[in-house]
């Protein structure tokens, strides 16, 4: 009895082995094709990613140039107080010192920035939520901060009526940002004007071209 049951097993063994080999090969081939597919897809993807260098400009426009419309307020409330307003399509305005500001006439440049002007410390307010609760409503001539050089100090104002969303607190510890990049990291504050208030002030502002002409910049 035992012998009889063994017999079929013995003859079956080589068959099983053969089957295993076949399965292994098929599996290997499958894996191979999956890998090839993935590689092919990667190559196709890569083709889409690499740009045509000949179509790229030598110097691309900056983030500010691409995303904002630039306006200028020359001699705002005081001679030499040239300020810029970058307006985003969503209505927000970034205000700061134009490169022609009197503060930069000084050799060393700006040495300190103080947001504690007017009735409150502008760096202390906390605006929260989508509705921008607790944002202070300022007029265009409301003081934002005081910028100091060795010899003088200048009051920087809003230039546009609206809610103050944020001041650039980094200027407190790093006033030199104004010297290196007043047009980017050295911005002063972000203001949210109502559409009507923006329209009113827009008329009195200059475009980049007009400003350049006025200050005889290249």
């Amino acid at each position, binding site marked *: 009895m035992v012998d009889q049951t063994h017999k079929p097993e013995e003859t079956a063994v080589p068959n099983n082995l053969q089957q295993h080999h076949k399965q292994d090969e098929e599996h290997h081939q499958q894996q191979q094709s999956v890998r090839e597919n993935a590689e092919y*897809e990667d190559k196709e*993807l890569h083709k*889409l990613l*690499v740009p045509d*260098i000949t179509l790229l400009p030598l110097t691309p426009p900056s*983030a500010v140039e691409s995303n904002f419309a630039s306006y200028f307020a020359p001699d705002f409330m005081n001679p030499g107080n040239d300020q810029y307003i970058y307006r985003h399509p969503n*209505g*927000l305005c970034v205000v700061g010192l134009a490169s022609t500001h009197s503060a930069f006439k000084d050799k060393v440049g700006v040495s300190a920035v103080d947001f504690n002007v007017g009735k409150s410390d502008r760096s202390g307010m906390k605006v929260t*939520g989508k509705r921008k609760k607790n944002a202070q409503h300022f007029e265009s001539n409301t003081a934002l901060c005081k910028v100091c050089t060795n010899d003088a100090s200048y009051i920087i104002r809003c230039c546009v009526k609206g809610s103050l969303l944020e001041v650039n607190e*980094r200027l407190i510890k790093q006033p030199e940002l104004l010297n290196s990049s007043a047009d980017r990291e050295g911005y002063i504050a972000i203001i949210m004007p109502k559409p009507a208030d923006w329209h009113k002030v827009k008329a009195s502002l200059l475009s980049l071209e007009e400003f350049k002409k006025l200050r005889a910049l290249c």
Partner: protein
Amino acid sequence: MSNEVESAQVNDATEVNQLSSSAAVESHAGSCDEEMPLLLLNDVVRSIPNHVVKALLSIGVCSRCVLRIFGTEDRIYCHPLLSQSMLRSIIEEVTGFKSEGSAQFCSVCLGILQFSYCNDKETMVKMESPNDMALTIAELVKKEGHQIDGFSLEVSVPQLIMENESSLLSAMRKRYESEPWFQERLLSKCVPVKDVLKFAITKPLETLLDVKSSSAGCFRIRLTYTHKMASDNSVERNQGFKRRKIGKENGLHNVNDESVISNKVCSDYSTNETISVTGSSSNILQDQEPYEHLRIPIDKVSEPCHLVYLCYRTHIYLCGRYLKYSRNVSQTRWIIDEERMGEASVEEIIGSNILPMCRGDNYKFHAAGREDIDVRMLGSGRPFLLEIHNARQVPSEETVNEIESKINGLENKLVGVKNLKVVGSQGWTLMREGEAEKQKQYCALVWISRPLEDEDVQSISLLNDMQILQKTPIRVLHRRSPLEREKIIHWMKIERIAGSSQYFLLHLCTQAGTYIKEFVHGDLGRTQPSVGSILGCRAEILRLDVTDVKMDSF
């Protein structure tokens, strides 16, 4: 007729009923192909005390309601071929009741179990049998062109019916609890109106539509009954009840008197059977009731209910991954001041190609995250879920594959689709599951203000799981909270571009919710660190592509 004779009759009838009910349960399988078991119906009617049947009929309760109140197990009153006229004539024959004048609408079920209603065209409809009603419903389903493999029947009836019923049952209980037959037939066996209606029309519907019904059906047939009286009077009636209650509490003397009166009347009633059998039974029912507010629901009903039929399929879902090859296509329809932003949207391209194949009413597009209009979605694609409302047919696997090929073969090659398939409601869970661990991979075309050095490539590649702090980007600050969000940049890799020293490709993998553009140019220093600050120069991003949205479940 003396009291004793009456009780004897009732006892006999009950015995007969018990014998036949077991047989009835077997034979009355509910098939409307069977002939109406008229004998059984006769027996059932006989098993209910005649005077009770007549009392109920005379106060305007319909025949079907009379039978269901006594809740006979065989539910003969639900038989689909049992017509109004057949039922009425049998009852009148057995009890000797003569109906007065024109048929009224039932004061309890408001005509629902008489298959009378007012349809949406404000026309009065009076069906003869449940089968006729089922026919109308089946026609509606066929007219809509629904392809179904099952259905679930939902019925909604006015609250007033429940109120009527409980008022009637408590009045009956008070009136008949002293009678000998009452112990055997408890009024708790009363079968609700909804159940009677459903049971009556479900089997014929199954036959007409050639499918089975189930409580979990994806195809819903909804009958909504409303009644003018229901909305107007319920408040008044409640107030009336309150007033009555207060009166009782104050006048203890009155209550005693009333209860004394009622007992007296009850005992009188049981000996004066002759008087009760004739038409004046309704008066006695009302007069001896100390709870006068019960009178109102027993008023005659002059109008039937308004019925709205609705048949629809519950939402079906298609899921897959989409690719966006264009930098001028938004993810969802984007319209500002009546002008469309971009030339098309992913949502509309996918939705408009799938909706007609399902013959649905409407679609809703949901995606696992989104990308800007000027950012391409490449690589594995972004998971999405498309909800189709009231699809007349569920597309087969073959059809779904055809849709996928069609979208991928569109001439303008704006959008692509992968792994499109029909999925159950678990599609939602799949989407939510993936969101938590989502990591995304991007490829950005970056320009820096000085030539790229080998050290730069090295130092960037060494930064792993670097934490950055992003203030809400100015471009979304108008609609989002001003917050500082911590995000993780998992890894970065610079790929040089042949022929350029200042342009390169930056591959990076970040935590979900990271603003990539701001991470590159710094957003006026409000994202720290940024690519620019890491490399110590000015960095600008020219274009961005999403190359992978890691989500295993899709």
